[in-house]
């Protein structure tokens, strides 16, 4: 008998064992309840109708007792329903589709780079190597001011970009949801690196003539994970304010932050960050629960800022010539891995099925008590989620997470394709990824989505959504004209 066959039958046997175990543990309550109910039923049958009547008469009922019991039940029920957190629904969201005039193919980026950095061929060489391996495609976009040789970033251009991105996304959102500007109760805008006065949220209020008693917030400086921080903030606010709509705008304005120097560690963001933005409508109104796309289940935030290395790994500073840029340290991946582990430890118990949690617990106990050399059990998150949206921070981030969470290529496809088509759009990339999954027609009712974002600080934030209704492939959206070309195979190194 060939040696492969026992392995195969072994693995098949193992698979069935695992399936059986999972079914057993996940449905333990049902499995224990069924025999008990069956036993009671058999007992009742055996007693017969007279036995039942006797049992009934033997119970002594007092009016006061009945009243107290019923009041107690009503009281507990009311208390339960009142203290339950409100369900937060995501009605719809809109992603910004950049105009074709903003397109930057690789060749153009490299040629501009050579002209701007003509005295520093090594820096040009470095940028070319980064671009080749970046995982970006030929259709990513930069704002108009950055297309000039040399770029002309001034405040007016930055505001222009902000208006273009945010207003386009908002207009799109109004159209999709039928929302009226006067109905917005909460507005949260997050943009990490551009923070003018008046704020971007004030700019939105001014443009759309929003109400004077609107609760507006502007989050800046919080990095690429700020999108989920805004979601968390909106959720908390929607617990306090009944019957409200919250609009969240996540974007990153590239214009003022394009690094004009030639320090290598700081040239990296120039190669990866691209124009993008998203506007999201969240609500706690019960009337919207029919047409809402998703329901927010959990938001978990992890901050590793207490550790100095983590704090300094994404750092904005001036280089030797006084030019401001964001410097990325070499242990970024390691720190990201650590932050992820922290986040998983918190989110695991909330989302994993009982079978996985039990295994994890047993392995943990085993490692602590019996043998520390046992391999730590990595819970299978594919049991908990159908879709994964990993922030498209860069190819390395996606590779790292795919490895750590043992995800298949299809699970990370949304992230990779978003990185290819749109580049790293910072906090809005999660929404482009979600849009990709919808555009592919893969989102069904009941599907659970896990959005993971990393950001400077160092932070790792997660959000879990549950799909409320099967989503038909959208007619218009950022992927509408190109979804048929995807997924594309992205080579390891693109020849320029």
């Amino acid at each position, binding site marked *: 008998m060939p040696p492969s066959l026992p392995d195969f039958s072994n693995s098949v046997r193992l698979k069935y064992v695992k399936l059986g175990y999972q079914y057993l543990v996940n449905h333990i309550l049902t499995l224990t309840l069924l025999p008990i109910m069956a036993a009671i039923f058999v007992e009742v049958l055996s007693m017969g109708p007279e036995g039942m009547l006797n049992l009934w008469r033997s119970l002594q009922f007092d009016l006061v007792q009945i009243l107290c019991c019923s009041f107690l039940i009503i009281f507990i029920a009311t208390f339960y329903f009142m203290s339950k957190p409100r369900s937060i629904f995501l009605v719809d969201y809109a992603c910004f589709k950049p105009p*074709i*005039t903003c*397109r930057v193919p690789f060749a153009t980026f490299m040629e501009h780079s050579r002209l701007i950095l003509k005295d520093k061929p090594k820096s040009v060489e470095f940028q070319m190597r980064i671009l080749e391996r970046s995982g970006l495609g*030929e259709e990513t976009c930069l704002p108009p001011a950055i297309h000039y*040789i040399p770029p002309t970033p001034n405040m007016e251009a930055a505001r222009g970009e902000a208006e273009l991105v945010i207003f386009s996304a908002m207009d799109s959102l109004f159209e999709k949801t039928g929302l009226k500007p006067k109905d917005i109760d909460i507005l949260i805008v997050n943009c990490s690196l551009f923070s003018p006065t008046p704020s971007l949220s004030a700019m939105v209020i001014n443009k759309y003539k929003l109400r004077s008693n609107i609760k507006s917030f502007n989050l800046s400086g919080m990095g690429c994970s700020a999108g989920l921080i805004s979601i968390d903030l909106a959720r908390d606010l929607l617990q306090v304010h009944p019957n409200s709509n919250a609009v969240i705008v996540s974007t990153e304005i590239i214009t003022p932050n394009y690094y004009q120097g030639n320090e290598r560690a700081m040239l990296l963001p120039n190669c990866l960050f691209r124009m993008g933005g998203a506007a999201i409508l969240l609500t706690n109104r019960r009337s919207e629960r029919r047409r809402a796309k998703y329901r927010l289940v959990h938001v978990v935030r992890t901050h590793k800022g207490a550790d100095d290395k983590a704090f300094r790994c994404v750092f904005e500073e001036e280089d030797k010539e006084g030019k401001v840029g964001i410097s990325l340290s070499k242990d970024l991946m390691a720190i990201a891995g650590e932050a992820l582990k922290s986040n998983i430890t918190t989110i695991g118990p909330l989302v994993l099925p009982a079978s996985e949690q039990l295994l994890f617990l047993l392995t943990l106990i085993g490692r602590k008590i019996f043998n520390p050399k046992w391999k730590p059990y990595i819970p299978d998150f594919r049991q908990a989620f159908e879709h994964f949206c990993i922030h498209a921070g860069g190819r390395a981030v996606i590779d790292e997470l795919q490895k750590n969470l043992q995800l298949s290529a299809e699970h990370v496809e949304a992230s990779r394709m978003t990185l290819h088509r749109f580049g790293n759009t910072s906090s809005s990339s999660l929404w482009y990824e979600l849009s990709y999954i919808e555009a592919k027609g893969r989102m069904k009712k009941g599907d659970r989505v896990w959005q993971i974002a990393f950001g400077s600080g160092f932070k790792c934030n997660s959000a879990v959504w549950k799909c409320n209704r099967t989503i038909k492939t959208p007619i218009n959206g950022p992927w509408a004209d190109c979804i048929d070309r995807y997924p594309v195979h992205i080579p390891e190194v693109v020849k320029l």
Partner: protein
Amino acid sequence: MVNTKVEEDRHVLVHGIRLSSVGPGRSTGSDVVHDLSGMDIAMKLHYVKGVYFFSSQAAQGLTLARIKESLFHLFCEYYYSSGRLRRTESGRPYIKCNDCGARFIEAQCDKTIHEWLQMKDSSVQKLLVSQQVIGPDLSFSPTTLIQVTHFKCGGISLGLSWAHVLGDALCASNFINKCGQIIASIGSINMQPNFHSSSGTSFKHQMSKIPAPPLSHEPLSVKQVDPVGDHWITANSCKMDTFSFHVTAAQLATLQSQISGQNQTEKMPIFESLCAIIWHSIAKVRRGSIHAEIVTICKNDPSAKLAINGIVTNAQIISTVKADFPITETDPKRLVNLLVNEAVDERRKIEELVEKDNGLSDFIVYGARLTFVDLEEVDLYGFELNGHKPEFVYYTVQGVGDEGAVFVLPAGPKGADEGRIVTITLPENQVPELKAELVKNGLGGHDLA
């Protein structure tokens, strides 16, 4: 000292230069290449320069953003002209269609269009169109450069620098005319989002269909120059000067009747008539040197199936005319007959010459011999903005060799102005005498005074 002051003034004339790039709005696809024909490679050291002037009414409401947007749509079709040159392993150049784009230059001028066109100094036109040539870095040099200059009066000029390796002046003109059409449709409410034909298909060149000449000897219209490597411009042995003058319809009629002499029924072709007179004048200036006995004629090929969309190539007919007699003593009518009847099409020979070493050698065509280029049939005034035709269109070629070149352009839109604009590039020292000669022959008038 005078020179530096003049140059300083020139710098101030056009200022506020900003550079950016415009390319195709859609990805052309990976590994798309455009092979260059022998003819293309023969023309590679020349650059077509066209300048279009528009009044303030034509330019009203036209923002740079709209021009750029229409160029992004245009390049979806003309993706060849937004690629970059590469060389095969054997050294033959080809175009890699990598969507790099054309260079877009924005500039300001403190004069009005009217004042500018009044300026006698033809060389200031160089400020309105980029003089950048291909190289020394072949793979990072744009083949197409577009400059938009804003004038004080609100008018604009659009300067196109089009590498001749892509195509001839007809192609360049079609390219710009299409741009005008797209600008017009972007303004309107219903806009077709896709202007491009199928992208990614490479154009297969066919060797000219004309029969092979009986004796294969070297073509006369082409001169091989010293290797220029990757810097595609040849140096002239003397300084060249360019000047232009307007020939009105009346002057043309007079000229034609003068040439045809007693036989008034014979209608002299305009282009050949002008060529004859100018050839005669130049021969006189050069005092009958042998170089004036052979000239090159470049005309559009009416049979070339040049699709208006996207396909660019060099299809003009290049022929030589040999006169076995001294030009200065010849009757212009005989010269006209010579030009019309005895032009020998050299395209096949040129291609064979280029293919002999697979496109490695460097040649010039314009200026290898005295060259006459007929652009009369080119729809220069077909580029419209806001429904208005240009005030004036000026075309010339950069990289003309020592023998000089003469370009005959329409002076205005067809039907509106039946005159001609003649632009002549010659060695500097021959220009004053030639101007005097032309005036004597009834051409130029106050333009050359």
